[in-house]
């Protein structure tokens, strides 16, 4: 519900939705909440929150650091969900997604995990190492708990896979314009209009582009290609990696950065097109 409302609102204004990503609990509980406040007050339309996992195969070096730091501090999955619940309490309307690895969902029992997420007020879960062909393991529990399962659409997937992704993904579809893992080392290229068009024709929920988006120009390119929203992860996490020992400076940098990207996203792209 929160997603469709948010996307509707953003679309009405000709904007893109801006969904920043950070790892929950990094660099510590208190600062993590302050970082999230920076994201929201500077223009985030939704949040994508990572939950620390020991073996993050889909993540590049920048996000790996951010994922491993809470683990080194014994930060648990349950403290992560408790922290998300606090964010939910503070921002009742904000769409909140969880980005997570399959074993964390599996280990304590899939149903129980989805219920815990539901209680924490989470709207969607993207399982980084669960392709759509393995979705049935999680689909039942997701549906029962009312949580949207989000899937990733890679640029070179065949039509059959795109169709399956479009039909299975709920809340939004996470689209990529390049191969590889998370990180700003390889910038996003402009997603092909044909690829996005196919997903729409197959009935996909709103299209949100991630991986390699770090500059306002990437946001304008994404808007031109025709996505509904964008995710930035590594660019923000990089600021955390660099400045977590000087929290005030870190928070200022994050605020400035998020404001810049939000400004680009909240341009009336419909008019400029």
């Amino acid at each position: 519900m929160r997603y469709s409302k948010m996307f509707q609102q953003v679309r009405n204004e000709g904007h893109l939705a801006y969904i920043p990503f950070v790892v929950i609990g990094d660099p510590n509980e208190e600062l993590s909440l302050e970082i999230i406040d920076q994201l929201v007050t500077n223009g985030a339309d939704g949040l994508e929150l990572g939950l620390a996992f020991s073996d993050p195969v889909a993540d590049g070096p920048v996000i790996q650091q951010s994922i491993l730091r809470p683990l080194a501090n014994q930060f648990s999955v349950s403290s992560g969900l408790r922290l998300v619940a606090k964010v939910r309490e503070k921002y009742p309307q904000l769409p909140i997604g969880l980005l997570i690895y399959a074993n964390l969902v599996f280990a304590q029992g899939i149903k129980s995990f989805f219920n815990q997420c539901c209680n924490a007020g989470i709207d969607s879960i993207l399982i980084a190492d669960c392709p759509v062909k393995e979705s049935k393991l999680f689909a039942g529990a997701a549906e029962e708990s009312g949580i949207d399962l989000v899937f990733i659409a890679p640029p070179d997937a065949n039509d059959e896979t795109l169709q399956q992704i479009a039909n299975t993904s709920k809340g939004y579809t996470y689209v990529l314009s390049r191969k590889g893992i998370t990180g700003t080392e390889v910038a996003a290229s402009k997603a092909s209009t044909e690829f996005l068009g196919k997903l729409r024709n197959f009935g996909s929920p709103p299209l949100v582009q991630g991986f390699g988006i770090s500059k306002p120009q990437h946001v304008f390119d994404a808007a031109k290609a025709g996505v509904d929203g964008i995710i930035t992860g590594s660019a923000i996490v990089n600021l955390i990696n660099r400045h977590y020992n000087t929290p005030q400076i870190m928070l200022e940098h994050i605020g400035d950065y998020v404001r810049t990207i939000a400004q680009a996203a909240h341009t009336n792209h419909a008019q400029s097109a």
Partner: protein
Amino acid sequence: MTIIEEQTHSKFEYDGAYIGQYGGQFVPQILVPALEQLEQAFEQAIDDRGFLDELNKLLNDYAGRPTPLTECQTFGRNENCRIFLKREDLLHGGAHKTNQVLAQALLAKRMGKGRIIAETGAGQHGVATALACALLGLKATIYMGKKDCDRQSPNVFRMRLMGAEVIPVDNGSASLKDAINEALRDWAANYDDTHYLLGTAAGPHPFPKMVKRFQQVIGEEAKQQVLQQTGQLPDAVIACVGGGSNAIGIFTDFIPDEDVRLIGVEPAGHGLDSDAHGATLLRGTEGIIHGARTHTLQTEEGQIIESHSVSAGLDYPAVGPEHVHLMTSGRAEYVGITDDEALQAFQELSHAEGIIPALESSHALAYAKKLSQQVTEETVLLVNLSGRGDKDLSHVMSILESNQKESSNAL
């Protein structure tokens, strides 16, 4: 009758990406096309006479197959027990790894991929990959945990000597599992021209099935050789299990022979009830790691725990999905051997038979010895001597020296 037989048989066949409820393809969506391409190439290749001829020629003329079966003269021998060793230690490269590496390297060429990436723990799989790539003119990049690079520097030199690029991996626990993570990340960006040559019967489908297919030659040969030398099937087949490739290789041909016990030996490290072991099957729980639903060592919340073994090749916190299926279905049994027991067997086999076994294989030998002391009827044991121990010499030497110091200090 026939129907029942068919059912028993099919229980141990793959159904798509799964064997029983284990396996699957739990990888980022971006890697799915690469796995599907590999699966297709693999299924076509094993039906293609030309491919199999080329592979067999390499296995025979380059790698030295068939490997001998050697009966122990004194090790574990008593009036009731004969122990036979399948000599994969004599295969080129020094371990069974070469069998399936040659096969996958040929597959890579078939798919038109000129670059190979691989992970390695102790360095044996890296060495096998480097030699196959040198032979077949492929470019090799080997990911190896930084800690392992330091522990196994001669193998790093071997790989570089044969033209491979070795990349030390410094994140996470800087060991095998992190090397696998890094290889998967590389593959996600480069699968167009790169094949990921995974080294064991674990990982996402089709790797477990494919590695099994290319290692089952071990069991096929051994079965004929045991029959020839004893006129009977062995009573038990024993192999060490890290990821599980040498074990599945020697087990597979015996799976339908229900009277043959299949025994996998896991690294019990400091003891199965200590917190330092690699006994994934005996002490791990079900989880999803490195692309497969399998058993893994993990916390209650699902964080993967580092394993421990004196043998780097068994020091892995997950295991191939087929072994979980063999265990839960009751077809195979799994036991643990500690670091100390393995070190003991390492020395005993060297002394008794003039064969220095790999520390990995020493786990299987130690269990065979134990079993030989328990049997009351005439028994034939088949042990997979999966690799030779040259790579372990300096490691074992330093352990024995420090043990000696400790005991003399105690006096």
